[in-house]
């Protein structure tokens, strides 16, 4: 009789525990869905009309998602929350949260590594290129280098000093983002990505955008640099461009394999 009672007690304890775990699972899944929906709402409905205001909400959401992720260890749900946090930090456009972006991406990637083949493909793939995306976007927001290059006119011999500064700044910009662009291109050789139809599409669209921007600006920088050196003798003042077309050509040298993979 005593043995039977003990067996019943243990049985009920297991049942209770399982029941609680089930309820937790449902709650967690619901929470994830709610958080994802809120992220989508902020990005699609709020941010287009109020970038500043949405920034605040996004950072709050990111912090919340990050905390939830930490509580979930190295699970798929945690990775999902890390993905949400990383997205929200990226689109908050706040440089002061850069380290937090790195932190959530790092934690998420660690969890991806821990899960191995069971890691959620989409979220883990996303975590691979969210930082270079954010880096390029952040740097490009500071100045519209393409537009500034276009306005350079060495034929009118006016404002040469400012124009040369534009060339310098553009070269600096390209140097800065080149690594990020390369990093994005490297992701393109991941077989998991290539086999995931939706993520491949998403990746290709954005990677092409990044590469196109980089290539265009680098080519236009090359054009204006050549133009400067051709007309240097006629340009007034003691302004001097420190680099030549060859240096810019080196900047243009990027592995262009993306084009093949994304066709």
């Amino acid at each position, binding site marked *: 009789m005593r043995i039977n009672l003990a067996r019943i007690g243990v049985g009920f304890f297991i049942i209770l525990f399982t029941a609680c775990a089930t309820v937790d*699972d449902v709650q967690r899944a619901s929470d994830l869905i709610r958080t994802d929906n809120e992220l989508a709402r902020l990005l699609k409905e709020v941010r287009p009309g109020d970038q500043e205001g949405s920034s605040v909400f996004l950072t709050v959401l990111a912090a919340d998602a990050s905390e939830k992720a930490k509580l979930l260890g190295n699970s798929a749900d945690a990775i999902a929350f890390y993905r949400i946090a990383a997205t929200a930090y990226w689109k908050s456009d706040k440089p002061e949260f850069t380290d937090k972006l790195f932190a959530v991406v790092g934690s998420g990637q660690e969890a991806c590594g821990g899960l191995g083949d069971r890691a959620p493909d989409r979220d883990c793939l996303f975590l691979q290129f969210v930082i270079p995306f954010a880096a390029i976007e952040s740097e490009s927001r500071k100045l519209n280098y393409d537009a500034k*290059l276009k306005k350079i006119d060495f034929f009118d011999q006016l404002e040469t000093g400012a124009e040369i500064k534009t060339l310098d700044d553009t070269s600096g910009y390209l140097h800065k983002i080149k690594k990020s662009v390369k990093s994005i291109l490297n992701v393109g050789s991941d077989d998991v990505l290539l086999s995931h139809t939706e993520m491949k599409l998403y990746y290709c669209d954005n990677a092409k955008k990044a590469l196109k921007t980089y290539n265009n600006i680098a080519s236009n920088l090359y054009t204006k640099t050549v133009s400067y050196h051709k007309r240097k003798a006629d340009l007034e003042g003691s302004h001097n461009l420190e680099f030549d077309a060859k240096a810019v050509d080196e900047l243009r040298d990027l592995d262009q394999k993306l084009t093949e993979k994304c066709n």
Partner: protein
Amino acid sequence: MNIALIIAGVQATLRAAQAGADLYSEHARDRPVFLPNLELPEGSNMSKLLEFFMENRQLAKSKLEFSVLWDDQNEVLIDQPPEVYDTACGLMLKHKAQIQLQGEGVEANAAEHEATMLAGGRMIEQWRAERKPPNAYVRMALTLTDIGLEFVASDPSILGVGSKGEKLVVAFAKNMADLIPDDVKGFGAKVDFADRLVGIFLRAGLGTITNNVSVVINDEDVAKLIVGVTKPIVDALPDNLVDQFNYREIVDALAGPSAEAAFKILAENTESYLGRNFANDTALGAVTSALFEEIKITTSEDSIVKVFGEQGLIGLYQAGLGVAVDRPELFIKDNGEARNELFQDLLKGTAKTLRTYPRFKGPVGASLAAMVVDVVGENAPALLRLNPDEPWEKVAITVMDQITSTLNTALTDLDDKGRPKGSISIFKDEQLLEMARTVLNQVVKTPGMIGVDRIEVQNIVAGMAKAMASDDNLLLSADEWIVIAGVAAQNAAANPGRLFDISNNNPEGALAVKIIESVLSVAGKQWTSGGRSSGVLLFGESLEMIIETVLDGLTGNITAVTKNPELVDKFLNQIINIANAQPEKLGSDSLLKIFESFIVIVLATGELPTEDQIIEVIL
């Protein structure tokens, strides 16, 4: 009861629930989510061109506007001045639009036309967004677009597809290149000024169309206007800062009205003279240059703007334009160059007259000058045929001076109450002008009567003024005097030397004046003795007709009256006495009938009719 079975059953249930929970969790992780895209600045035109060339390398190499920009070997653009990029961008947009339209099934020609418009519109928007148009052409294009859009907002009907307003804007766009010199860089400070002026002129043109739906302004008119009117104003912009400041101020006030004046003339020219050649831009330019060069000059006294007033000056300018449109040859030398000095001399000469007679400064004098320019200018060919060595502008100045001085004399000859004498006191300025115009219009029909050394106009105006001054009882209104002046001038022109000549033969004054004065004298006596009571019939319209009748009579046989000018008042007194004796038989109509019936005989023979003859006429 089997406890294990129960526990297993609960476990199975929970496991099923867990499986459901697991599925739910999996769903939460794997459901589609929103992933935001990378946001990067849109590529510049330079980048778009680069991409376009990369995708269309054959086209990039073969089309000239593209090939100057494309380095195929290095796969980069070749740097060129901004306008080269703009041209290529426009073509690129057009090419893309054309392909898209043809892909949608639009026929090739229509697709090309529409693509051109789409590309052009896109470029306009781009330049506006950049806020720094690359060059003078683009800047003006933006100005034209902006003003067109203003009118679209206020009156959409005039700027619909194919509308007159749209055609006008397009005409301006096509011709604005005439405003911009080949050396665009040398245009310098004038870019801003020219751009502003083009805007003013287009606004005036669209305003003209809005206010007059029947007006048609052709491409050629706009071309002539830009070269002949707008360009001289731009060219006259001084270099010196102070002068430029003063000039810009004046142009701000005058450009709009000048443009309206020019459009009005062009519109009238098109309306009234279908099939006529379009206005000559050299002639228009001669008038406009003269005006805007002259307004820069400030003498020790004042500028012509002060002398004529802004409105007055525009009226004078419009008169000049009118002559330039109708008689362009007057403003062009044999070698085809403009006679800029002609209108300048007119302005100087007429301004001098008004300075001499300050009573006429401002709009009145300007209207008088405009009238003289208009009348003499229109008849200049006839004058020049008669006397090729006498420049018509000098004739105009002389006539202006004669009329002004004479009227001034009349207006400053005051009675003891300090008012101008007689009917002159009731004349408004416009009526004085109208009288002068009436006289001049008649006289100019006999070209020999006006000239630098001729005094007929002066004599007629002086004579009429003298007659008007004697109308102490104000028996005639200003309008009635104007009609009389017209008849007098017409008859004088047809009979030179007869009516208004003061000579050795008429030492006491012109015949017409003496007779009018005597008629007025008779009428005046009747008025002062009887007032409006029954029996007094000589005032207003009836008096006017009496005077006109006798003026007509003076063109015939005047043998008797030349020796005895009192004949007319004797005759009048006779009729009045009969009228007063038989008021039931003789009213104003009868009086006039009698006068008309016998005045010719009276003037010729001096014989007055008998009472029976008079009664016979009225029965």
